[in-house]
Structure formats: structure tokens, C-alpha cells
């Protein structure tokens, strides 16, 4: 490996070094504040090192990783999301569970997994990145060891996700058996020489795709999502919903692009069917929820449905560039908004002993005793619903115009119906927040409160900025994707 390789890999190297340093610190001196500080600094440094690595891109480092501008952009995004999660969890983890230091170590490792996924262009690195991301997440979900709900959520996720990954691995093995390669680009070249109706190939592709769809929680592989989301600690849920989903979607998009799987019309149409099912089922089931975390879980299923539209759009080579651009923008907006929503949920639920459950009636009258918090929550929800002036609107509009240019009218119809339904349940939360206050008077927690509060403000500012001045990100995406 040359020095250029090391410079290009610097985000991953910084993350690994931060993990090693944090482990040494825990071994010699246990201190939550120091661990959190170290983790946050490490993650921010990793994000900054993406800027340092950018001149080398695009560069293929060993057969496993491709460091291009898109990968570096998402490495930076994931690292920043990790840093935000560290700061959001600081207060939470101190009063939940003993020995909170390893939490931050696991969070760094999970972010490293997401970054590996963002750079992966080889099935081996895909699998390793995915496993690193999820194994750290199992432990993070089960981290608070004073209540049983997180343990239940982690067990469910572990067993189901283990089965899904095993299925995916079997699919990879079948693909390898018929093509003899694991690298995305070579896979595409070999596949072009084989007949598309080869049964081994079709079964292999279906199994591999089912495993990835499970991780994305696209319908019909979504059954684990609400239980895991509602059982996990709120900051971890935010991380799982934003980074965990975005990384997998990014690698799926790269697999389809580099191996040119778009030429298999039936596979892409299957993705389109999943998109429609996810949009409708996610939004309809979200209507029935009274637990806010479960509602957000179903809404995240619907958001994955919106994102999967991009695959059908990319079927037509002419509108493929617009489709990828829309997906990248949507992923950025979705990550920021989801983190903000779950961060604020952490703040709201920070006032209860059992924090894993936030019911709608818990937030009754929030506007009256915590106007700032409620206002921020409202912006986050409006962005998820796709109301103008927020990042969510621009992102949805992007997907919408991509679908129009690809003439995908059925998907477009599902998108409109889904968005219409979603406005009802997002606004229902706002309605509950604005109701007359009841006896339920929450007690603000003291430590680290200002930090989380300013962080939440920062995220909301980011959402509004992306919503009102999206040109900078749009032109950047266009320049790196062309």
C-alpha cells in the first residue's frame, strides 16, 4: 500500500485509532466524561480527515474499498452523526447501567462499520462492514442493564438479523459459485456473459437482496423494526435509524450501479414493488401507533420506501444520474432529520425513569412548559412529513421529480398517498404537544442538559438550512456524481 492509499483511508484509520485509544483509556482510567470527550473528538477528527483525504479520491485501495467523493461525503456524515449520538447519549447513559464507558467504544466501532460500508465495492468488505455495524449495535441496544426491554429488543434483533445475514451470505456464495468473483465491478462483467435466467444466479441474487432488505427493514422484511426501535435507548435508535439505514442503502445502490444490476428488469421491479409496499404499509401502520418511537419506526419504513423509488427511476439510463443525486440528497436530509427527532425524543423522555417508552399522552402540553423543545420537535416532524422550508421537503421533491422524469406513475401515486397519510400522524404529535397541560409536570435533568439542547438547536438549524438553501449541497452532489 502506498502513502496515497493511507491518506485516502485516513477516515477509517482515525476511527480505528480512536477505538484503540478509548480502549486503553478505559483500561487505565474509567471516566465517562473523558471517554465521551475522546469519542466525540475522534469522530469529529474522522469527519475532518475526509476533507484531507478528498484530493486523493477516487482511489481504489486494495480490492476491497473504493474511496470516492460520495464515499468520503458519507464517511464524514456518519462520523458527525456518531459524534452527535455520543453527545446525546452522555446524559442518558450516565443514569442507565453501570460502566458506561464501553458504550462510546461500541459507538465508534459501529460508525467504523458504517464507513466501511460506504466505501465497500467488494462483497467481502460489504459483509464485514455490515457485521461490524450490526454487532456493535446489538450491544448498544442492550446496553442499559437495569431494565429488560432493551435486552428483549437486542435479542430479537440479534436472532433475526443473524438469520438474515446468513441468508445473504448463502446468496453471496451462490453468486460466487457461478461467477467466480466477489468484486462488484467484476461481478457485473461476469454476469453480462451469463444468461439472466440461470436459476442458481437468480436464487443467489434473491437471497443476497433479501438479507440487505432486512437490514433496510423494507416491507415484507420489516417485522423486527417497531419492537427494536421502541426497546432500544432513544439515542441508539436514532443512530440505528439514520446511519444504520443510510449505510446499507448506499452500499445497495453501489452494488446495483457497479455490477450494473439495472439490466435485470425483474429484480428492479421487485425493488419497486417493495417500495410501494413499504410506503403504504409503513404509513398505514404508523397511523395505529400511540407510542412515538413505534410511530417513528413505521415512518422510517415508509421513508425507506420513498428511497427505493430511486431504483426504479434508475432503470432508465437517462434519468439514472438524477435518481442517484436524489438518493444522496434524501439520505443526507433523512439522516439529519432522524437524528434530530430521536435526539429531541431523548430530551423529552430524559425526564422519566423508564425512558424506553414515550407515549403520546406523555407529551401533552409540551408547548406550555417547554416551548423551545416543542418547537424544535415540531420542525423535525414537519421535515419528516416533507413540509416546505425544511430539508425533508426538498428531499421529497427531489425524489418526486426523479420519479416524474422516469415516468414511474404508480410509484408516484404511492408516494403521494403515503405522504398524505403521514401528515396526519406527524401532526397528531404536534396536536398533543399543543394540548392543555395536565398534572404531568416533567422535571428537567440538570447535567449536560445545555449541551444536548444546543446540539438539538444546531440540528434544527441544519434542517432549515438544507430546506431553504439547498443549492450548495445540490451542486456539490452534482459535481461529485458526474
Amino acid at each position, binding site marked *: *500500500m502506498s502513502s496515497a492509499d493511507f491518506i485516502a483511508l485516513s477516515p477509517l484509520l482515525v476511527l*480505528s485509532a480512536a*477505538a484503540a485509544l478509548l*480502549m486503553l483509556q478505559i483500561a487505565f482510567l474509567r471516566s465517562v466524561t473523558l471517554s465521551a470527550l475522546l469519542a466525540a473528538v475522534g469522530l469529529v477528527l474522522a469527519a475532518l480527515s475526509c476533507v484531507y483525504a478528498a484530493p486523493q479520491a477516487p482511489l481504489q*485501495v*486494495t*480490492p*476491497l*474499498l473504493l474511496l470516492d467523493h460520495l464515499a468520503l461525503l458519507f464517511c464524514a456524515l456518519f462520523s458527525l452523526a456518531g459524534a452527535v449520538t455520543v453527545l446525546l447519549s452522555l446524559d442518558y447513559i450516565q443514569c442507565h447501567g*453501570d*460502566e458506561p464507558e*464501553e458504550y462510546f*467504544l*461500541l459507538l465508534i*466501532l*459501529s460508525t*467504523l*462499520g458504517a464507513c*466501511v460500508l460506504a466505501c465497500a465495492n467488494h462483497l*467481502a*468488505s460489504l459483509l*464485514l*462492514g455490515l*457485521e*461490524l455495524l450490526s*454487532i*456493535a449495535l*446489538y*450491544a448498544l441496544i*442492550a*446496553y442499559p*442493564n437495569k431494565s429488560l426491554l432493551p*435486552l428483549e429488543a437486542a435479542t430479537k434483533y440479534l436472532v433475526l438479523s443473524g438469520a438474515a445475514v446468513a441468508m445473504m451470505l448463502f446468496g453471496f456464495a451462490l453468486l460466487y459459485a457461478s461467477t467466480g468473483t466477489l468484486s462488484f465491478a467484476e461481478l457485473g462483467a461476469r454476469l453480462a456473459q451469463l444468461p439472466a435466467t440461470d436459476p442458481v444466479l437468480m436464487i443467489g441474487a434473491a437471497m443476497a437482496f433479501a438479507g440487505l432488505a432486512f437490514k433496510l427493514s423494507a416491507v415484507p422484511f420489516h417485522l423486527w423494526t417497531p419492537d427494536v426501535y421502541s426497546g432500544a435507548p432513544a439515542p441508539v435508535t436514532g443512530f440505528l435509524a439514520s446511519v444504520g439505514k443510510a449505510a446499507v442503502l448506499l452500499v445497495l445502490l453501489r452494488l446495483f450501479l457497479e455490477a450494473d444490476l439495472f439490466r435485470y428488469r425483474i429484480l428492479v421491479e421487485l425493488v419497486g414493488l417493495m417500495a410501494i409496499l413499504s410506503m403504504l404499509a409503513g404509513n398505514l401502520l404508523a397511523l395505529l401507533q400511540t407510542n412515538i418511537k413505534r410511530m417513528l419506526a413505521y415512518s422510517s419504513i415508509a421513508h425507506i420506501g420513498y428511497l427505493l423509488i430511486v431504483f426504479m427511476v434508475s432503470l432508465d439510463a437517462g434519468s439514472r444520474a438524477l435518481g442517484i443525486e436524489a438518493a444522496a440528497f434524501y439520505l443526507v436530509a433523512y439522516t439529519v432529520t432522524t437524528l434530530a427527532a430521536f435526539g429531541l425524543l431523548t430530551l423529552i423522555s430524559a425526564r422519566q425513569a423508564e425512558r424506553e417508552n414515550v407515549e403520546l399522552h406523555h407529551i401533552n402540553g409540551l408547548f406550555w412548559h417547554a416551548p423551545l423543545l416543542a418547537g424544535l420537535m415540531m420542525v423535525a416532524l414537519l421535515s419528516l412529513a416533507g413540509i416546505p422550508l425544511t430539508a425533508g421537503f426538498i428531499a421529497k421533491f427531489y425524489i418526486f421529480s426523479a420519479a416524474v422524469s422516469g415516468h414511474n406513475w404508480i410509484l408516484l401515486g404511492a408516494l403521494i398517498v403515503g405522504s398524505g397519510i403521514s401528515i396526519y400522524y406527524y401532526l397528531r404529535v404536534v396536536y398533543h404537544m399543543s394540548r392543555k397541560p395536565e398534572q404531568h409536570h416533567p422535571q428537567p435533568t440538570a447535567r449536560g442538559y445545555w449541551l444536548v439542547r444546543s446540539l438539538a438547536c444546531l440540528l434544527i438549524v441544519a434542517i432549515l438550512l438544507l430546506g431553504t438553501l439547498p443549492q450548495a449541497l445540490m451542486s456539490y452532489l452534482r459535481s461529485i456524481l458526474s
Partner: protein
Amino acid sequence: MMESLFYLASLVAVMATVAALTRANAAHALIYLIVSLLAVAVLFFLMGAPFAAALEIVIYAGAIMVLFVFVIMMLNLGESGTAREQEWLAGRNWIVPGFMAGLLLLELMLALRHGAGTTSGVAVSPKAVGLALFGPYVLAVEIASMLLLAALVGAYHLGRRFIVRREQR
């Protein structure tokens, strides 16, 4: 010749796995699981991957053995446990797994006598595996080390839950 050995070993693997899944007794299921893993190791050997075969035995069969010992140790406490253990390990329970394992041993002997022929046509030596892992795929090894670190730290923290509870009791 090699092909028929291969199919015989796969038959043993499938049958042992089915038996492992259907046994009601955990200890018996584990014995069949070990036989199944041994059969897979023989399959690897016949396909020309002796290194993978050795790893299969050392890591999987070895680790399962340890698990087996733990199960016996934890489930059988006291006099009644000893009696139950003797009943579990009665001679008749060993006949089928023993026959399967013996068959696999016989296959291995035959394959060794016949020399280098492999079903896939290419034999991969341990040296080639090492060169690939620490050559082009060195990053995979590094990422895997981080993966193991995450698993280790996670297992430590989750295991602590029970240690702490026991101390409090």
C-alpha cells in the same frame, strides 16, 4: 472416486444436521452437531481446501466440544445429575454418531491414500491462503479484528449484567 466420497460425506453432513435439529436432548444434539461439523471439514478437504478443513475442526468442532462440556457441567449438579448424565451417555446413544464419525474417518483415509485428486480441480495450500489474507485482503483482516473487538466488548458488557446481579444477591 473422489466425487462419490464427496457425496457420501455430504449425506452424512445433512443427516447429522437433521438429527441435531430433531433431538430433544441438548447433549445428544451437540454430539450430532459435532459430527456434522466434522463432515463439513471432510467436504472442505475433498474440495482441496485442507486449511479450511483444519480450521473447521479446530474452531467449530473444538468450540462446540467446550460448549458441550459446559452444558454437562451446568445442567448436572448433584447426585441425580450424575445418574442422568450416565443415562445420557449410555452406550446405545453412541452407536449412530460413532458410525457416522467412523465413516468420515474411513473417507479421510481413502482420500489420503489416493493422493492429490480434488473435486474442484484446484488445491489451495495454507501458504496461498496466508498470502491472500495478508496481501490483497489485508484490510479485511484488520476490519475483522475490529469486528471481534466489538463482539468482545459487547459480550463483556452483557455478561456483566449477570455477574453484578449475583454479587448483589
